[in-house]
């Protein structure tokens, strides 16, 4: 029987039942933005999945070619908007490598603290979306409730809630205000209590366990082969965290663990993020204790990079975020900037994970991958 499949589908037809195709997105509540998935279904079971990207492709890399480096820092906010502050650092580190400027200790502490706050904020959104996508709307609000406290801190420090545009080569744009450390302390104390509630609410819930254990298993080999990173990779049993493997900033001075889980299913991906929130809080506690006085920025220099290629990688909340800057002439403008976002490979591996699962499981798996679509499409 000759049967023309829509583009992207590859599997041979196996069963004799009538298969049908469902189009999910680009406007669908659980695709986390403008992602479109086409599903090949056998009843409620997914046979194959093809993702379609590009609904929010904004041509950032093309635009970057006519922008100055500083302007590109502002542009990088709009990639992974859940942790814009981390994207800033990724770009800035690449620029620092080119300009060969260092950062004073206080500046590094500011960086690490904001990074970890951003990571907690992103994981809280994950907590909310995970619960929300499973059908518990209350979780969604719980996750966002604590996130607002972080955004208050970020707003006070950087001047904006989401698009921070804060770090500069050699430090950051401003020093932190005096209220910063007390606020972070208050936040940590509050968060400690709240996390207990939140974990009680979801972590042991039998329905959550039933819906996430053994669902969307990504084996260690597949996770590496597809280039997954961050919590998704670590949930599959690979101990890889850029903060440990290539410690940037001053992450080598802190005592924290990199949580690694072995099963690679949805529940492990959930647990690992909860564990990471605790680790981030641990780092923040150390920062609060040791926060140094002194200059927060090194001497301001015009942002001009010598000819060459500069590469930086950091660990954002989602995974490995790499920036590749090509400077063909010494000057303010790049020849080309390329960004490697962590979510892109995760969606590529999605097909591997959902095969044989139900459409409801797709929602769970999407939630635990925690993709940010504009970072994929750029």
């Amino acid at each position, binding site marked *: 029987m000759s049967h023309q499949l829509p583009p992207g589908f590859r599997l041979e037809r196996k069963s004799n039942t009538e298969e049908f195709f469902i189009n999910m997105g680009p406007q669908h*509540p659980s695709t986390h933005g403008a992602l479109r998935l086409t599903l090949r279904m056998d009843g409620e079971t997914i046979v194959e999945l093809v993702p379609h990207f590009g609904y929010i492709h904004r041509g950032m890399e093309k635009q970057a070619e006519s922008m100055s480096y500083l302007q590109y820092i502002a542009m990088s906010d709009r990639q992974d908007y859940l942790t814009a502050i981390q994207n800033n650092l990724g770009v800035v580190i690449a620029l620092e490598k080119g300009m060969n400027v260092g950062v004073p200790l206080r500046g590094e502490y500011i960086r690490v603290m904001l990074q970890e706050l951003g990571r907690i904020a992103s994981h809280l959104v994950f907590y909310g979306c995970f619960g929300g996508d499973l059908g518990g709307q209350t979780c969604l609000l719980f996750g966002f409730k604590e996130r607002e406290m972080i955004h208050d801190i970020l707003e006070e420090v950087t001047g904006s809630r989401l698009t921070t545009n804060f770090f500069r080569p050699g430090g950051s744009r401003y020093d932190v205000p005096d209220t910063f450390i007390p606020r972070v302390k208050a936040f940590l104390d509050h968060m400690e209590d709240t996390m207990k509630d939140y974990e009680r609410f979801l972590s042991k819930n039998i329905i959550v366990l*039933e819906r996430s254990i053994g669902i969307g298993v990504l084996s260690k080999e597949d996770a590496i082969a597809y280039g997954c990173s961050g919590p998704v990779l670590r949930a599959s049993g690979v101990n890889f965290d850029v903060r440990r493997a290539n410690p940037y900033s001053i992450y080598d001075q802190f005592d924290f663990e990199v949580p690694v889980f072995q099963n690679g299913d949805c529940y492990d991906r959930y647990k690992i993020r909860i564990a990471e929130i605790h680790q981030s809080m641990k780092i923040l506690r150390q920062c609060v204790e040791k926060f140094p006085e002194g200059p927060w920025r090194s001497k301001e220099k015009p942002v001009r990079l010598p000819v060459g290629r500069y590469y930086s990688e950091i660990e954002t909340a989602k995974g490995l975020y790499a920036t590749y800057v090509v400077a063909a002439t010494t000057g303010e403008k790049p020849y080309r900037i390329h960004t490697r976002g962590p979510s892109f490979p995760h969606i590529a591996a999605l097909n591997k994970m959902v095969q044989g699962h139900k459409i409801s499981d797709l*929602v769970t798996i999407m939630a635990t991958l925690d993709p940010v679509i504009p970072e994929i499409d750029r």
Partner: protein
Amino acid sequence: MFVPSVTHPIGDFVRDWVPRLAEYLPASIQSEDLNSVVAFLINAVICIIAVCVVNIGSAPILIYMERKVCAHVQCRLGPMRLGWHGTLQTIADVIKMLFKEVYAPSGADKLMFYLAPLIVLIAPFIVCALIPFDKNLVVADVSMGIPLIIAVNGFGVLGILLGGWSSNNKYSLLGALRSGAQMISYEISFTMILLFVVMISGSTNLMSITMGQEGTIFDWWIFKIPVLGFIAFILFFISSTAEMNRAPFDIAEAEQELTGGYHTEYNGTPFAMFYLAEYIALITNSALATTCFLGGFFPPCIGIDAVDNVLKMVPGVVWFFAKIYFMVWCYMMVRWTFVRPRVDQLMDFEWKFLLPVNLVLLVAGAAFIAIGL
């Protein structure tokens, strides 16, 4: 000529007055039968109006309540700006929906499409007519009350199936099929629990089921039979939640998966009817739970005369509605706490857990009656 009886306070009044007014009619058409038929018809109209008022009137209250309950669970305020603490919010919503544009999607079966919400609305209305709100306040005091409820409840799924199928949308169809499978499964345990109640109370008439619970709070069916009654109540709670398609068993709507399920393609008034039906079903199910387990319109006496006399001064209707709203609140707390199981897990839960437990419960109940009473 057989004319079914209708008991409510105005009923006797109407029955008295119809023959008196009939005397003014020409003698040739005067007859006893006619009088009773006319009296019945008048009573029926009054009852229909009463049922409509109770149901449609309470739906906005429930929607408002739901919004407030969920808001407070989620540490926020809920509607605040329209009327005192947003009390008028749902009224504004209803008026707005009535004046929205209405259209059916292309390729939809128009007749079925507009018929479906009506069918969904019918079932809870009929159930409501059977519920005794007070000693002499029941629209239809049928002797086969429980079987009728079981029969009528199965009707609601038809509307959902029709709505999903006629929308010409894959998501709607998936939602409708899910809900069909779910409701047919859960109907069984729903029926079993009601049978349990019938068994221990020895009657299928809702009034006599209620009357069997007269006395203190420990005479209610939930407490009268130790442990078994409570388990039966919990099982009833679960299966009625599934019957109503409410979260956490709302896999038919499953906003995150199916963007609304069977009512994805509905707008304006038909959608409002689906929306209303959901809440009317909520109130009828709560009323059923109250009647069968929580002592109906009897106050929660505790055996101390001084307290009981005060409690008995409050009319039964008030107690009945207080219990209904407590039940509704329970349903809401559950809805805003739990996540949704997957469709096959839901079936597993019914066939592998609820149904066996139900059967054991029936046997245990029978044994209890055989030994204890």
